[in-house]
């Protein structure tokens, strides 16, 4: 830490659930540094944004039986992915052995990295097939006294496949290593075949797990394994044999279905159980294992030849797992406080608040109505998948062009400085791993200090509190429901509501979420989409793993790109990427879809021809002529950051009424990449008519109604001038009408 400015977060926390009903339990996990106790309180988050000019920050304390002071301490996070094969008698009998696999290291030479290991560290008997400090294949044999390492001393090449094999003859002590790259060069050759000597008759420690992509060097006090040497890269078709395997046997052993020989101990097929976190042994010994920290699956393997781009059709081409030493899934902390949601707690946005001295943390959660109780006419939609996708975002710290994209000097918050140093808190789906590969998974079973908490920047969760704060200030009663609920329960989660109000950025949607929303509209449901860049990316949501998956396929506003052949999600098998590219543009769901992005300053709206349409003119009652929304706490304007527009070819209803269009966008606003099929010089906001937001209204034959603003910064203008402004008036006019039983004009 740098002296002076104190940005250290000494209280970190997360919860097992984020959407609950009265009577449900929420388990909060808390970690403390420099404190021994913390105070717990539930607060209703009214406005999570702290700005000097906008609506004031507001939280309301709620009494619950869980209120009070709790003991606490530091809870560790073990980032980095690997596979565990539990100890078994078959492994205990191991003496001579061969390990082989196809290997694509992505950070060879970046520290010692284990590929396959069994043992408890240098002083204990065990073995480890590793890449040594130089990135060369090596085998470590320890008999409890001596630890011998035999290395090829030839560095492997980054991002290149190779066949590797390491064997140990317990009788003679001979070690043999094969390192056979697929690609050979005139001046660079990473081929190696080496033999060496290790202690004879090493007796490996019994009853010990086998690890792939990591090395267990001990046990923490809490019983969890202490891992080291985590591997970065892909492993395909790992095989373990109980003898020294010779050449022709190696090729047989490498087959998808290995030979039924007594010496085949383990043959793991990573193309099995692709959607889960187990690894399957097909040798017949059933040495099945599990994965820790969500390494990347459904990635191209050694056998991928470009003939297939969907792993479900040729899974054998996808028998690789990509491990990263900065993957994180479940922090696995002990529960510190268990809250039973009070029976009389009204539906809304809440947070657990954890305070110790001057330090604090918040963990948001949503409380829905109790089952069987009458719903209100209005439901606010918590876009939790989007909050997860942005959680702990590092892109401004690691991305070379961050300032070029933003169009101004980056001003970091203390939370970003803290995140930069606590890399074990895990990455966001906007980040790349250390080896340059994109982050495809995001879990909420970890502490989040950016983008899913109040008192944070105006983005994601926090930006959406502008909407709920405004509804409360203007006297609109509402329930809350989350996208996670919609995924799990379908349209029934939305039934009974006259109108669903979104936040500023409902960007990430699973297929079940999308289908449920379609069904809601088919039943006459109404929506106010008060944001931009909504319904943009398809995700896979894995309820068992409490994680989302995103493939940055083909096109779109991306911070990294999925590799060829890797557009299909491991969780679902579905093609990931943009809903537009999948054939369901956002315009076909909500009338508008992403046109442009820009991050320096925001523009405003000007009335369009539809403002005078008799079916829609009521929306402007009480609204002054002239610019709409040339103010706000996000970029000083209601039209900005990410902008959506009408395109009938992409599915906007033909009778969509365009109420207003945005203007005033700078050269740092540009058409979204998916809007451009060939680059040209006029993609900027000062030259391109499609760099704009369309504010729209339409109804459907079902009685459904849609009002959409197409701008992320709209919500951040609602609180201007004590909520007395045209952005507020327009939104209130629509919400009043949409919440009413009367048919829409």
């Amino acid at each position: 830490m740098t002296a002076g400015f104190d940005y250290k977060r000494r209280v970190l926390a997360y919860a097992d659930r984020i959407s609950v009903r009265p009577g449900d339990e929420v388990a909060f996990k808390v970690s403390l540094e420099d404190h021994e106790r913390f105070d717990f309180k539930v607060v209703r988050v009214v406005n999570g944004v702290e700005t000097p000019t906008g609506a004031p920050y507001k939280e309301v304390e709620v009494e619950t039986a869980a209120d009070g002071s709790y003991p606490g301490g530091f809870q560790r996070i073990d980032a980095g992915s690997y596979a565990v094969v539990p100890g078994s008698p078959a492994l205990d009998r191991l003496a001579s052995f061969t390990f082989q696999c196809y290997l694509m290291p992505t950070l060879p030479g970046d520290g010692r990295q284990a590929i396959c290991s069994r043992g408890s560290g240098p002083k204990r008997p065990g073995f480890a097939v590793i890449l040594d400090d130089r990135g060369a294949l090596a085998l470590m044999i320890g008999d409890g006294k001596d630890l011998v390492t035999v290395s090829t001393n030839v560095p492997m090449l980054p991002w290149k496949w190779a066949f590797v094999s390491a064997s140990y003859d317990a009788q003679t002590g001979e070690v043999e290593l094969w390192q056979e790259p697929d690609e050979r060069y005139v001046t660079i050759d990473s081929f190696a075949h080496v033999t060496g000597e290790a202690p004879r008759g090493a007796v490996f420690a019994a009853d010990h797990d086998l690890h792939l992509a990591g090395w267990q060097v001990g046990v923490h006090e809490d019983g969890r394994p202490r891992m080291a040497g985590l591997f970065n890269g892909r492993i395909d078709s790992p095989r373990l044999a109980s003898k020294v395997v010779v050449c022709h046997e190696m090729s047989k052993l490498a087959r998808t279905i290995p030979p039924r020989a007594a010496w085949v101990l383990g043959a793991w097929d990573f193309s099995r159980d692709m959607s889960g976190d187990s690894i399957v042994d097909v040798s017949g010994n059933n040495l099945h294992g599990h994965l820790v920290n969500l390494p990347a699956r459904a990635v191209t393997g050694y056998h991928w030849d470009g003939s297939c781009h969907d792993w479900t059709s040729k899974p054998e081409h996808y028998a690789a797992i990509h491990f990263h030493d900065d993957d994180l899934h479940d922090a696995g902390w002990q529960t510190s406080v268990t809250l039973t949601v009070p029976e009389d707690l009204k539906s809304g946005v809440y947070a657990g608040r954890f305070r110790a001295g001057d330090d604090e943390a918040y963990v948001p959660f949503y409380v829905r109505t109790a089952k069987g109780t009458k719903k209100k006419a209005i439901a606010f939609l918590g876009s939790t998948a989007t909050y997860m996708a942005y959680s702990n975002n590092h892109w401004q710290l690691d991305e070379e062009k961050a300032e070029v994209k933003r169009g101004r000097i980056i001003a970091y918050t203390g939370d970003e400085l803290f995140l930069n140093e606590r890399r074990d808190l895990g990455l966001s789906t906007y980040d790349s791993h250390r080896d340059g590969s994109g982050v495809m998974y995001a879990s909420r079973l970890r502490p989040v200090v950016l983008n899913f908490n109040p008192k944070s920047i105006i983005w994601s969760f926090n930006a959406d509190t502008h909407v709920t704060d405004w509804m409360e200030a203007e006297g609109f009663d509402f329930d809350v429901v989350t996208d996670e609920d919609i995924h799990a329960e379908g349209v029934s989660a939305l039934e009974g509501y006259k109108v669903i109000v979104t936040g500023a950025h409902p960007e990430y949607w699973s297929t079940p979420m999308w289908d449920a929303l379609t069904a809601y509209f088919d039943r006459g449901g109404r929506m106010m989409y008060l944001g931009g860049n909504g319904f943009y990316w398809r995700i896979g949501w894995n309820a068992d793993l409490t994680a989302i998956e995103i493939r940055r396929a083909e096109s779109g506003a991306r911070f990294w790109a999925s590799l060829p052949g890797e557009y299909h999600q491991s969780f679902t098998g579905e093609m990931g990427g943009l809903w537009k590219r999948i054939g369901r543009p956002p315009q076909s769901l909500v009338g508008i879809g992403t046109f442009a992005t820009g991050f320096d300053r925001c523009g405003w709206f000007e009335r369009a021809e539809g403002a005078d349409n008799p079916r829609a003119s009521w929306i402007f009652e009480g609204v002054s002529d002239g610019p709409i929304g040339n103010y706000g706490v996000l970029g000083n304007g209601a039209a900005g950051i990410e902008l959506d527009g009408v395109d009938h070819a992409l599915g906007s209803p033909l009778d969509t009424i365009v109420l207003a269009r945005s203007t005033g966008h700078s050269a740092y606003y540009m058409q979204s990449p998916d809007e451009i099929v060939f680059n040209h010089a006029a993609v900027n906001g000062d030259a391109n008519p499609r760099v704009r937001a369309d504010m729209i209204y339409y109804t459907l034959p079902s009685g459904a109604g849609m009002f959409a603003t197409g701008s992320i910064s709209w919500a951040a203008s609602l609180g201007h001038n004590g909520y007395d402004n045209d952005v507020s008036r327009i939104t209130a006019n629509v919400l009043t009408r949409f919440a009413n039983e009367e048919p829409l004009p």
Partner: protein
Amino acid sequence: MYKIDPAKTELAREFKDKPFGPHSAELQKVLNVMRWEPVEGKYVLVNTVPHKEWCLAQLPGKRGIPVKLHEDVKFTDLGEAEWYIFKMRWKKHTGQDLALD
């Protein structure tokens, strides 16, 4: 590639007057050059007092290494901070101090 011409001080003056734009096409080119720098050592700001105070800082260029704060250089106005860093970058790219007035 566009090179910043130290003689074109009128572009610097334009930036000083309107650090947040809109900017002329040529000033935009100057800014594109200045803003696309390697992460290591890049000048940035840290918001040390929310909405009130920003401190000059430099990115480490390596994950996990603390951002270097220059606590002797603080700003209460983001436009002033933009101008301060603009002048440093002008010197870096042209080899000349930026002398206006």
